[in-house]
C-alpha cells in the first residue's frame, strides 16, 4: 500500500528546498543552497524508487486519490490529487534521477556564477513542478504542472538575463509555448464541456460519450468531438515537446546554462507532451484522425529536424536538434499507438540525452566556455572520461545494437512498419532515413570534438592559445559516469517487461486494431536475439553508413564537407537557415502582430480607449471626485443635513410610493 504521506513528501521535498534556496539563499550561502536542494531531490528520488518497487515487486495497487479539494464550482471539483500507477512511477524515477545527477553536476558547472543559489532554487522548483505534472490525477493539476514547468523553463533560459540573446530566446520560448498552451487549454475546456469533470478517471469512463458527439467549428462541417479534443490536446503537446511547426523555441533555449538544457530541454520537460498523450491514450485511441495527425507531425519532426543537426556547428545546438528529432520518434510511436514504445524511448532518451548534454557541458567547461565545434578537436587525450561517456551516449543515440537507445528506437521503427493507419508509410520512410541522419550528426559531433587536429591551439588571430583543455572536476564527471551506466544497459534489462510485457497494465490503453506493439512482439525472442537479428536489418546498415560518412567527412577528408556544401548551394543554405522557419515567423507572426498591434494601438488604444474611455472616464471620475470631496465641508450641520436628506428621500420614496 502506498501511503499519501510518502507521495506528498516526494512532491514537497524539492519545493521546500527550492524555497529555502531561493528565499533564504543569502543566509544559507552557496554550500547551504546546494546541500538543501540536493537533499530534497535525493529524498524524492529514493522515495520514488521505493514507490516503483512497491508497485512492481510488492504488487501494490495503483493510487488514485484526492489530497485536497481546492474549490468546487458548478459541480466541477478542482482538486490536488495523485494518480500513481506504473507509468507515473516510471516517470517519477526518471525525473528525480536525472534531476539528482544534474543537481550534482551543477555544483561544478555553475561554480563561478553569481546566481548560484537562484539556479539551485529554480531547478528544484522545476523538479517539484514536473512531479506535480506527472503525478496529477486531474486536468487542473496537469495544467498547473504544465504551466509551472513552462515558467521555470522561461526563467532558466533567461537565467543570464543581461544577455540580449537569452532574453530573446526566453521570450520566444514563452510565446511559442503560449500557442501550444492555448490549444491545450481549449482541449481541456472541451473535455470539461462534454464530461463535466476534470478527473482523469471520470473522463475516461465517459469517453464513449464524447465520441458519440459531434461539434461544428466552422458552420456546416461536423467534426467528431473526440477528434477535436485530441488534436487540441496534441497542440499543447506540440508546443511543450517542440514538434514542427512549434519547434522553433527549443534550439534557442540553448541560451540557458547547460545543466538545464540537459534536465529541462532534453530529459524531462520536453517529454511532458509525450507523457500527456500516453496518459490520454484512452481518448486518442478513439480517433484515428488525431492519431494520423500525431504520426505525420512526429515523422516530419524526426526526419527534417535531424537534417538541421547535420550542418550546425554549435555543440549544444547539434544536441538540441537531435533532441527534436528524437522527440519526433517518440511522437511517431504515439501516432502508431505504440505508447509503451514511446515511453520506453522517453526513458532511455532521458538517460543518454542528459548524458550527452552534460558531456557537452563538460567539454564547454574544458574549453573555457567555447561552444563552436570548429574550434575544438583532439579533446580525447585531455578529457578521457568525458570522451568515453560521450561515446556511450552517442552509441545509444545512434541505436547501436545492445545499447539502450537501440531497443527503444528499433521498436519504434518496427511498430511504424507494422502500422496501417493513414500516414504510416510516410512515417516509416522518415524514421528509417532518420537513422542515417542521426548517425551522421552524432558522430560528426564526436569526431569534430574529440578526434582530429587540435584546432583550439590557434584561434582566429593565428597566435597560440595558452589554455590547454583539462578534465572537469569530479562533481561533473561522476554524474556522467552515473548516467552512462543506464544509457548502456537499461534497454537490455527492461525491454522485455516494459515494451512487450504487461508492465503498464491499465495505465495505457490500446485498441486491439491499433496494437502495433503486439505485432512487433511476435518477432521478439529476448534482447540478445533482438540485437543479433538487428545486424541483418536495414536500420543497422543505415546507421553504419551514417557513422562511416561522418568519419570520411570529418576525420579522413576534412575538406570534403565544404566542397559538398558549395556544390549543394541552395539545399545547404536551406538547412543552414533551418528551413527559414525563424524568418517566416519573424516576418509573418512577429512583425505582422506588431503591425496589427500598432494599428490597434493607434486606433483603438490611443484614440478610443486612452482618449475616450480611460482618460475620459478618469477625467469624469476625477472631476466627480473633486466635486464630491467639496461636499465633505467639515461643518457639522452640513453632515447632519445630509443625513436628514437621506432619511427624507428614503421615506419619500418608500412611504409615499
Amino acid at each position, binding site marked *: 500500500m502506498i501511503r499519501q504521506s510518502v507521495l506528498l513528501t516526494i512532491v514537497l521535498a524539492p519545493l521546500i528546498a527550492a524555497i529555502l534556496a531561493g528565499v533564504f539563499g543569502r543566509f544559507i550561502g552557496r554550500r547551504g543552497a546546494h546541500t538543501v536542494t540536493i537533499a530534497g531531490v535525493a529524498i524524492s528520488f529514493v522515495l520514488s524508487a521505493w514507490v516503483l518497487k512497491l508497485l512492481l515487486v510488492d504488487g501494490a495497487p495503483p493510487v488514485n486519490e484526492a489530497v485536497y*479539494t481546492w*474549490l468546487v464550482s458548478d459541480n466541477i471539483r478542482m482538486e490536488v490529487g495523485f494518480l500513481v500507477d506504473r507509468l507515473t512511477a516510471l516517470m517519477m524515477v526518471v525525473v528525480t534521477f536525472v534531476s539528482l545527477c544534474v543537481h550534482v553536476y551543477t555544483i561544478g558547472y555553475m561554480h563561478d556564477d553569481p546566481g548560484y543559489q537562484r539556479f539551485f532554487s529554480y531547478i528544484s522548483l522545476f523538479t517539484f513542478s514536473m512531479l506535480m505534472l506527472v503525478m496529477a490525477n486531474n486536468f487542473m493539476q496537469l495544467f498547473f504542472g504544465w504551466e509551472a514547468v513552462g515558467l521555470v523553463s522561461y526563467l532558466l533560459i533567461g537565467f543570464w538575463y543581461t544577455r540580449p540573446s537569452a532574453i530573446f530566446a526566453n521570450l520566444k520560448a514563452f510565446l511559442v509555448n503560449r500557442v501550444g498552451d492555448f490549444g491545450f487549454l481549449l482541449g481541456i475546456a472541451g473535455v470539461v464541456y462534454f464530461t463535466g469533470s476534470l478527473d482523469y478517471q471520470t473522463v475516461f469512463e465517459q469517453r464513449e460519450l464524447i465520441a458519440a458527439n459531434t461539434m461544428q467549428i466552422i458552420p456546416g462541417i461536423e467534426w467528431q468531438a473526440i477528434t477535436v479534443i485530441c488534436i487540441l490536446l496534441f497542440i499543447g503537446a506540440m508546443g511543450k515537446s517542440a514538434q514542427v511547426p512549434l519547434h522553433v523555441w527549443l534550439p534557442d533555449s540553448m541560451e540557458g546554462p547547460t545543466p538545464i538544457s540537459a534536465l529541462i530541454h532534453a530529459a524531462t520537460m520536453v517529454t511532458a507532451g509525450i507523457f500527456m498523450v500516453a496518459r490520454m491514450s484512452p481518448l486518442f485511441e478513439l480517433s484515428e484522425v488525431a492519431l494520423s495527425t500525431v504520426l505525420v507531425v512526429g515523422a516530419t519532426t524526426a526526419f527534417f529536424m535531424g537534417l538541421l543537426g547535420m550542418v550546425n556547428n554549435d555543440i549544444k545546438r547539434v544536441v538540441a536538434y537531435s533532441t527534436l528529432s528524437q522527440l519526433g520518434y517518440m511522437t511517431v510511436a504515439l501516432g502508431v499507438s505504440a505508447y509503451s514504445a514511446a515511453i520506453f524511448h522517453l526513458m532511455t532518451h532521458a538517460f543518454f540525452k542528459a548524458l550527452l548534454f552534460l558531456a557537452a557541458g563538460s567539454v564547454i567547461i574544458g574549453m573555457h566556455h567555447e561552444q563552436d565545434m570548429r574550434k575544438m578537436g583532439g579533446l580525447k587525450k585531455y578529457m578521457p572520461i568525458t570522451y568515453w561517456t560521450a561515446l556511450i551516449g552517442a552509441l545509444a543515440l545512434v541505436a547501436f545494437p545492445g545499447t539502450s537507445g537501440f531497443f527503444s528506437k528499433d521498436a519504434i521503427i518496427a511498430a511504424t512498419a507494422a502500422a496501417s493507419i493513414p500516414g504510416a508509410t510516410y512515417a516509416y520512410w522518415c524514421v528509417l532515413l532518420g537513422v542515417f541522419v542521426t548517425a551522421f550528426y552524432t558522430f560528426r559531433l564526436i569526431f569534430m570534438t574529440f578526434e582530429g587536429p587540435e584546432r583550439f591551439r590557434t584561434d582566429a588571430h593565428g597566435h597560440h592559445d595558452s589554455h590547454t583543455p583539462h578534465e572537469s572536476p569530479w562533481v561533473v564527471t561522476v554524474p556522467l559516469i552515473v548516467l552512462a551506466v543506464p544509457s548502456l544497459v537499461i534497454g537490455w534489462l527492461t525491454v522485455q517487461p516494459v515494451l512487450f510485457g504487461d508492465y503498464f497494465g491499465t495505465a495505457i490503453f490500446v485498441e486491439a486494431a491499433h496494437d502495433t506493439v503486439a505485432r512487433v512482439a511476435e518477432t521478439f525472442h529476448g534482447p540478445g536475439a533482438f540485437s543479433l537479428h538487428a545486424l541483418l536489418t536495414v536500420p543497422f546498415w543505415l546507421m553504419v553508413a551514417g557513422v562511416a560518412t561522418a568519419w570520411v567527412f570529418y576525420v579522413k577528408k576534412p575538406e570534403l564537407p565544404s566542397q559538398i556544401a558549395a556544390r549543394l548551394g541552395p539545399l545547404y543554405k536551406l538547412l543552414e537557415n533551418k528551413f527559414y522557419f525563424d524568418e517566416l515567423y519573424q516576418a509573418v507572426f512577429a512583425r505582422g502582430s506588431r503591425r496589427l498591434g500598432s494599428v490597434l494601438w493607434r486606433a483603438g488604444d490611443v484614440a478610443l480607449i486612452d482618449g475616450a474611455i480611460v482618460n475620459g472616464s478618469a477625467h469624469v*471620475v*476625477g472631476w*466627480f*471626485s*473633486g466635486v*464630491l*470631496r467639496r461636499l*465633505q465641508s*467639515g461643518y*457639522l450641520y*452640513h*453632515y*447632519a443635513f*445630509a*443625513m436628514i*436628506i*437621506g*432619511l427624507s428621500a*428614503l*421615506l419619500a420614496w*418608500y*412611504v409615499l410610493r
Partner: protein
Amino acid sequence: MFDNFGMQAAAAEIFLIATICVVLLVDVFLSDSKRWITYALSLLTLAGCAWMTLSYGVNERVSAFSGMYVADPMGDVLKLFSYATVAVSFIYARDYLQRRALFKGEYFVLGLVALLGIMVMISAGNLLTVYLGVELLSLSLYAMVAFDRESTVAAESAMKYFVLGAIASGMLLYGFSIMYGIAGTLQLDELAVELRSVESPIGLVFALVFIIAGVAFKFGAVPFHMWVPDVYHGAPTPVTLFIGAAPKISSFVLAVRVLAEGLDSLVANWQDMLIVISVLSMAIGNIVAIAQTNLKRMLAYSTVSHVGFILLGILAGTNDGYRAAMYYTFAYVIMSVGSFGMILLLAREGFEADRIDDFRGLNRKSPWFAAVMLMLMFSTAGVPPFIGFWAKVEVIAAVLDVGLAWLAALAVLFSVIGAFYYLRVVKVMYFDEPTDTVDIQAGGTLRAVLSLNGLAVLVLGIVPSVLIDLCVRALP
C-alpha cells in the same frame, strides 16, 4: 444559581465586565512607568474571554434572561473574532501610544468597554438589548476619539461623531418605538412572528426607514457616512485602527439581528433600501477615495466602499448572502487592521506616516514590509489570490443568486475604479524615491504580528476554505 437565568450563556460578558472593573482599579494605582501592567491585563482579559466563550460554547440557539439575550454559534464565532481583533489592535497601538505619551489606561479600558458593547449586540435577543449594546459601544468610541486631550482636531472629530451619532441613535430608537407600537413586542423572535400577520405595511415601512438609517450610520454607509472620513482622519491612529476593525463586526451583527432575524418578513422592503445605500456607498466611497492624499482619509473612503460590498451580501436576504457578508466582514477586518498597522509601523516621533507620500520608496527601506503592504493593498483591491478577492466573489455570487445581475455588474465596475487608489500606494512604494533615510523604529512584537497579518491575507486567500468553513459553522 447560574442556571436559573441561563447566566452561563453570558459568562464571557460577566467575566469581561468584572475584569474591566479590576483593570480600572489597578490602573488608578499605577505609575506611568508601570503602565504595561494595564496593557498586559487587558490582553489577559481578552484571553480569558476567549476561554470563557470556548468553554461555554453552544451548538444551538440558547436564550437567557427571559429572551433578552441569546447565545448561538454565530455569536460565538463573532465574539472570538472580536477578541482577536481587539487584541491585535492593542498590540499594534502600544508602540505609537508609548512614543507619544498617550500610553494611558483609558485606551485599553475604553477599548474593553467597547468590546462589551459589541458582545451585547452580538448576543441581543431584544431590541432594547440591541440598543444597549449600540450605546455602550458608541459612547466608548466617542471618548476614545477624544482621548488625546492635547489635540484640537481629535476633539473636533469627537464632537462631530458624538452629535451625529446621537442623531442616528435617535432615529434608530424612533424606529424601534414605532415597531413596538405596531407589533406590541420588542422581542426579536416574537417580532418576526407578529409582523407576518400585519396587514398594512405603511407604518412598518415608516419604522423601517428609521431603523435602516440608524443601521447605515453605524456602518458608515452613504448618505450617513459623513462622519467616517473626519473621524478616521482626526482620531489618533490607534483609535482609528480600533474603530475601523471590531465595530464593523458589530455593524454586521446589528444588521443581521435586526433585519434578518426580527424584520425577516419585510425583506422585500429593506432589500430595496439597502440596494440604494449599497450602490451609493460603493460609488461615493471609491470615487472620492481617488482624490485623497491622506492615507487615513483614503482608507476611510475605502471603508465606505467596502461597507457597500458587505451590504450586498446582507441585502441578498438569503443565508448564503449573510454568510458571504460575514466572510467579507472578516476579510475586511483582517485587511483593515493590517493597513492601519502599517501606518503605526512607520510612524515615529513627529512623523505620522499617514500621507500616501510617506510610503514613498518603502521598498528600499524594508522590502519585506513593502511586500506586506503590497499584499494588503492587492487584497483590499480584490486581486486574486488574496483573501479580498474571495470575499468579493462570495458577495457577488450571493447577489447573482437572487437575480440581481445588474447590481453584481455595478459592484465589479466599482471595484475596478477602487483598484486605482490601492495600486497607487503600491506604485509609490516601489517606483518612487524615498523622501528620508530613517529606518523603521517599531518594536519586534508589532513587526511580527504585522508580518503574520500580511501573510494571513495571502494564506487565507490561497486556502479560502478555512474561513469559509468557519462562516458555514456560524450560519449553517
